[in-house]
């Protein structure tokens, strides 16, 4: 399902939260809305889902305006940062809830819920109460619950915040796998630039309620529109990926890397410079001085600073 926003404006308690926001999320794509805290990202998700009504502008699903359609009929699930599982239900009933609301009979909805739990690797936990789950398990249940009814789109509101780094990596991989498998349109809100780079087909940068830049991850990384976009990618970082046919690949991030082939690292410095370095034996040793990927990034950053 394609999601289209046209000139969305929203003011809350006399503060303009969204100002003339227009963007398009093509059907089946994974789009991240990136920006600092308070930029209006979560509010934008609330407008798409219908939890908040905009003051002006329109929301379109597959070319049809849905402003008059209530939230529960928009067929757009949301995964919140705090999971928002229902404590009066066990895990299975939580996941089966959307099917129950759509009138699916008990045996079928329980079977589909079980299958969905298996997809998120939580088989065996069906009878657990929600307060007995870890943070990562709660988010998996929330994901399963959002996807079980095959919605037209899924909105993720900073779903990995509050999880530790290792669990976050697992969750990102899981979300990407589920996206591939179900081919659902996904809009994710995040303040983590690298998370957006890795997972998204497109990134929209939001600042002060306005869209500053929209484009492929490589566009925002290599040709940022403003210093704020540069800053969203934070300190010098390095990613290990692969160069095939002259293109460096890291998740969904694709950057041209002529002259390099095979395993490589992409180094992005604080000043916005990027460099792709091969990870084969000799050149890796030259580039890294025999040190770790992060150390290699630091070397490049220092070299650039001297230049």
């Amino acid at each position, binding site marked *: 399902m394609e999601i289209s926003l046209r000139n969305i404006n929203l003011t809350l308690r006399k503060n303009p939260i969204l100002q003339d926001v227009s963007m398009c999320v093509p059907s089946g794509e994974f789009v991240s809305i990136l920006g600092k805290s308070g930029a209006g990202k979560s509010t934008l998700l609330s407008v798409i*889902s219908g*939890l908040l009504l905009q003051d002006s502008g329109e929301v379109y699903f597959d070319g049809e305006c849905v402003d008059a359609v209530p939230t*529960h009929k928009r067929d757009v699930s949301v995964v919140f940062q705090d999971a*928002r599982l*229902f*404590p009066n239900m066990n895990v299975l009933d939580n996941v089966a*809830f959307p099917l129950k*609301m759509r009138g699916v009979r008990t045996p079928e909805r329980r079977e589909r819920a079980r299958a969905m739990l298996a997809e998120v690797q939580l088989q065996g936990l069906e009878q657990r109460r929600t307060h007995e789950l870890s*943070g990562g398990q709660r988010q998996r249940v929330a994901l399963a619950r959002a996807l079980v009814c095959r919605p037209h789109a899924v909105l993720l509101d900073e779903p990995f915040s509050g999880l530790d780094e290792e669990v976050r990596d697992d969750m990102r991989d899981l979300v990407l796998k589920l996206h591939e498998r179900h081919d659902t349109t996904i809009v994710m809100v995040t303040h983590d630039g690298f998370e957006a780079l890795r997972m998204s087909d497109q990134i929209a940068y939001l600042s002060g309620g306005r869209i500053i830049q929209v484009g492929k991850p490589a566009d925002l990384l290599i040709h940022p529109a403003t210093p704020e976009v540069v800053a969203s990618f934070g300190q010098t970082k390095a990613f290990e990926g692969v160069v095939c046919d002259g293109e460096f690949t890291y998740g969904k991030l694709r950057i041209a890397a002529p002259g390099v082939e095979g395993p490589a690292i992409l180094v992005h410095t604080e000043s916005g410079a990027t460099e792709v370095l091969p990870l084969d034996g000799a050149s890796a040793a030259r580039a890294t001085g025999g040190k770790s990927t992060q150390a290699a990034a630091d070397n490049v950053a220092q070299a650039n600073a001297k230049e």
Partner: protein
Amino acid sequence: MSARKNSGARWARVLVVLQIACVALPLSIIAVWAFTDSWPWPNLLPESFSLRGMQTIVRGGDATGLGCLLLSVEISVVCAVLTTAVAILAARAICFHRWVGRTAFEYLTMLPFLIPTTVFAMGVQVAFIRLHLAYTAFGVVLAHAIVALPYAVAIMTETTCGAGQAREQAARTLGASGLRAFWHVSLPTITPGILSSLCMSFIISFSQYFLTLLIGGGKVRTFALILFPYLSGGDRTIAGAYALVFLATTLLVFVAFRVILRKTGGSTEETALYGEA
């Protein structure tokens, strides 16, 4: 550290036992009086026992016995349900919506706390006579509900604001209409508050004397109306019997509320409801 913990636990147990004793001992005296025929001072134990007190209640019929008890329970249950329903709606308006006059509304719900029952009763009696509600059971229910409302609103506001609207919003994004989201998600979450509100409203209504006397005009004879003259009179056996039945009825109704709420999908285990982040 372990010795300190054990000492703390021991003192906590002592305090609990003392508290239970403060409640249980006077109640046990009432229970003994309910079956006592003669207990002259300064005897430590009754001289003789009888079932005279219980027989008075059983044989009293609608006027003074089990019929009267049934009417009292009906009035108080209806009052409790009505008050709690109004309190749930008021709490949602206070917690989830911003509107002009919200703060004033919140204070207005507490007005019955500030106005003495006798003053309120005399004022509402005049209004009820005009509305043809005086001397009727429904009029008594309404009057009791007004007096119980501040307690119910206070309880439900705390519970509703604590539970928040987040899960209800999540339910709406998963295909539940507003009403279904409330029924399946919010209502079970606020069940502990509902139980407290029902019990508090019930006991306030069940023990009302002056208000029932004035609004009911003697035609609506509740159990409290029958009990109070015996308490101030000299027959402790009958007073004890009525008091015992009063207590037992209250406890039974509380248990019934709890069972009904559990059966409708609510959980009264607060740790299960509020344990997660």
